[in-house]
Structures are given as C-alpha cells and as structure tokens.
C-alpha cells in the first residue's frame, strides 16, 4: 500500500488562486445545499413546536414499538450478514475455484435490485398467493406481514455490505499471515481468531456499521412486506410515513430526527474506524 500524498510543497501542483477558490466555492455550495441543509432541516422541523412535542412523539407507544422492532430487525439481519460476509470474503479471496466470478456477481446482486422488488420477491414466495404461501398457512407460519418477513427483506437489502467491505481489504492483505499460522501448526479456528480476525477487525467493523445503518433505515422493501400494523409491524421509517400521512408532521420529523441522529452517529463511527484503518495501513510494512 503506497499512498502518494500530494506533495503540498510542489509548486507545480499548486492551482491558481482563482481556480482554487472557485472550485472550493462550488464544492462547498453543493455540500451546503444538498447535504447540510436537509440535515439541519430534519432537526429544525423536529423541534419546530418545541421540546415537549418532540418528546411526546418519541415516547409515544407506537413510536417505541417501532423503535423496538427496528432494533430487533437490525439485531437479527446484521449478525447474519456479518457471518455471511466474513465467510464469503474468505472464500472469494483465499481460494480459486470454478464459478467464483459468478459468486461475486451474486453477492453484488442485491445492490442492483430495487428495494420494492426485494419486497415483491418475498411476497411472491411467501404470500398467500405465492409458492410457499398455502403450505405456510397450513402450518401456521407467518412470514409476510410479520417480523420474519421484515427481517428477510432487510437481510436481502443489506446482504452485500459486509462482504463488499471485506473482499477488497482481504484481497489487498493477502493470505500469507494465515498460511504462516498454518505452517506454525495453528488449527483453522485458531488461525481465524488469532490472525484473521485481528487483521480484518476494523474493516469488519466498518462493514457492520454500514450494514447496520442501512438495515435500520430500509424503507421500500420493508414497506411492501410489513402490512403496516401499528405497534406491531411498523418500523421506524414506516412509522414516519404513517405520521407524515396523518398530519402529524412535527411528530414525523421528531422520529426522523432520531434516525438522523443515528445517521450522524454512524458517520462519526465510520470516520473513526476509517481513520484507524488508514493508520494501520500506513504502519504496515510495504508489500
């Protein structure tokens, strides 16, 4: 890993002042208009009618149920995708086998699928009119319009995040440390816990953070399979939609502000982890 930092001292790389200022101005105006303004607006609208209204919206029983459900769904989908992501990254970066290209494309597939379609496929599969619907109904298994369906749709949508983060990382790191561990007599698990996990730790955390952010915020897919039962199958984003449609704009923005807060937290964590990863990469001996 050789990161060429631009030599700031080099006169040849210095842009003329007018160019620098205009590029900077355009970029910052863009950021202000498209990123900062909406972010501030969420909080602005949320506290428009004061702290009490905000508090009331957030502690409302249906809001609390939505928060619980959202956390539950993330708590199931994210670990599943983490295990899968690590396994997939290991498989793809450590072995060569027939069909590997196909596998990588399949991992990417959910990125290319509209969330609405992600919901639709589960309806086609598990809905009463779907392939497994009648069987599920006979055995009284509820998937669609219940928590399992929401978990499935979320899992589908957030499926590639951890794997996508780990594959390039592990590709760059190479497997020599693991091979060294094996020649030193380590077992597979011992190699994984003692060598691989510490090696990929921050990258893994990075992927998990992204995966989690998306899992909590998923709207389209969940909307199709949720059934919108208040207090039961409404996640936070769906609850926001409901409030929004009920003239409870301030309440909608109050719950949205929670999610925005969470997004900010994600950004901070992501920045810290990214910074750690870069530092580790910088101290690693040049390969």
């Amino acid at each position, binding site marked *: 890993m050789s990161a060429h930092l631009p030599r700031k001292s080099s006169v040849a790389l210095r842009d003329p002042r007018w160019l620098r200022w205009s590029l900077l101005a355009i970029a910052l105006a863009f950021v202000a208009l498209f*990123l900062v303004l909406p972010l501030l607006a969420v909080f602005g609208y949320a506290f428009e009618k004061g702290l009490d209204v905000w508090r009331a919206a957030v502690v409302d029983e249906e809001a609390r149920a939505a928060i619980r459900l959202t956390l539950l769904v993330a708590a199931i989908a994210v670990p599943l995708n983490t295990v899968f992501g690590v*396994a*997939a990254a290991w498989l793809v970066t450590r072995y060569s086998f027939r069909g590997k290209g196909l596998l990588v*494309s399949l991992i990417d597939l959910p990125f*290319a699928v509209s969330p609405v379609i992600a919901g639709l496929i589960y309806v086609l599969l598990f809905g009463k009119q779907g392939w497994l619907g009648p069987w599920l109904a006979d055995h009284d298994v509820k998937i669609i319009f219940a928590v399992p369906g929401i978990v499935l749709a979320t899992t589908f949508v957030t499926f590639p995040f951890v794997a996508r983060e780990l594959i390039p990382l592990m590709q760059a790191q190479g497997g020599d440390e693991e091979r060294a561990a094996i020649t030193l007599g380590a077992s597979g698990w011992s190699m994984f816990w003692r060598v691989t996990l510490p090696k990929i730790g921050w990258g893994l955390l990075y992927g998990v953070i992204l995966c989690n952010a998306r899992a909590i915020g998923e709207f389209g897919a969940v*909307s199709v399979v949720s059934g919108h039962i208040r207090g039961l199958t409404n996640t936070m*984003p769906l609850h*926001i939609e409901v409030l929004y449609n009920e003239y409870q704009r301030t309440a909608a923005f109050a719950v949205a502000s929670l999610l925005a807060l969470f997004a900010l937290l994600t950004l901070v964590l992501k920045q810290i982890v990214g910074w750690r990863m870069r530092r580790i990469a910088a101290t690693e001996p040049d390969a």
Partner: protein
Amino acid sequence: MRPRWRRQALPGFGLTFGVCASYLFLIVLIPLAALALKSATLGPAEFWNAVASPRALASYRVTFGCAALAGLVNLVLGPLLAFVLVRYRFPGRKLVDALVDLPFALPTAVAGITLTKLYAPNEPLGAWLASLGWKVAYTPSGITVALIFVSLPFLVRSVQPVLEQLDPDIEEAAATLGAGRLTTLWRVVLPALWPAILAGFALAFARAIGEYGSVIFIAGNMPMVSEIAPLLITGKLDQHDYAGATAIAVVLLVTSFVALIAINLLQLWTVRRRSADTR
C-alpha cells in the same frame, strides 16, 4: 484416484463454501427465481403489454431520465468535490468529508420527507424557487433532486481513492512540459479519473433506478409525468396484478444488472490497462 488437486492449503473451504452457497440460495436465489417464474407465467404478448404500456414507458422515462440526470449532475460535481477534498486543505474539510456519506447513513424515508418539505412551494426555499418559475417538489425536478442526494456518495467515493493514489509525478511532468494548471487538470488528471468516474456513475445510476423511499414523497406520483417505475410496481401490486408488477420488476432488474455488469467490465478493463502500463 483421489481428487487431490482440489485440496486447499488454507482451511475452511468447505465451511465457507457451504455457508455462502446455502445463504445465497435462501436469501437471494430462491426469491429471485420466484420472480423469474412469475414473470414467465405471462405469455410474450402479455409481458410486452405490461412492460410497454404507455404508462410503463412513461415511468421508465421518468425513472431512467431522472436517474441519468442526477448521475450527470453528480458526474460533474462529485469528482469536483472529491478533488477539493483530496487536494485542498480548508477548515472543516474532515467534516465535509464525513458528511459525504450522509445519504448512505440517513434512512431514505427521512431524506424523502425532509427534501419534500424543503422544496414544497409553501416553504421558503420551494416558494423562492417557484417564484423563479422552477417548481421542484412534485415534479420530475424533485425526483432528480432526491436522486442527486441519494447517489452523491457513489461518485465522490469512487473517485476519491484514485485521486489519492494518483502519482503527483505525472502532474509535475506535465508542468515541466509547459502545460498550464488547467490544461494539466483537464488532460492529465481527468483522463486518469475517467474509469473511476464511470464506475461511480454506473453504481449511482443502478442505485437511482431502484430508489423508492426518498423519491415517493417528493415525486407527486402523477402517472405519465412524475411516476417512477418502482411506484408503478407497487401500484400494480395494489391492483392484484402480480404478473404485471413482476414484468416491470424484470425490466428494472435487467437494466440495473446491465449497469452493474458494465461496472465490472470497466474495472476489469482498468485493471488490465493499468497492469499493462506498469509492465
């Protein structure tokens, strides 16, 4: 004879292969197979009617048009932002850098209602724009704004690392050859970024085609004018028209798939060209 050559030196092939294959089958392949089978229940003529009805065609126009337009805006501003972030030092740079990922982190529904309210004609910003004759909310402009927001990080984040890794020697070389700064940026730096820019564009486009949460609030959802294809799918679902919904889903899937394949080919090509350069 033992298939000895299949052995792998590192442990875990069987385990990880098993985990990946079964997980892929359960979560991705079987549901998608359901989609394919369902669309296959339509005859060719019915399928064509579903995917090529005037309303469907209009929704593709809106979806693909707005996605492409948003992609184009980001195609210019994304790399510009990446350039400023990598090359310039200014107060708040780290903050801006972190903020670029906001659209990834912010749930789309939140983005949707916020942008809608911001640009609605009865709010200050929307009113001001409307007084200039530019209605944003509830028009394709609004959809484009939402898609610019959603796809912004793709362009920035795909260009940024390439720019960071770009060897400053080539720029200095251009300077020693007498090129002005603008010429250098235009003829030396930009060409080096093109593959990353295009890959970012394709990703952004693929994402924007399927985007739902941030768009439906601001779209106005007028058939033929501001109705996006994903909404048409839910609309068809609501009318019990599963096959029709599936048919449109197939069109969307294929399109974003083509975009993704284009990315992969592009990356393959870039890697090849780069390694050819160094050899």
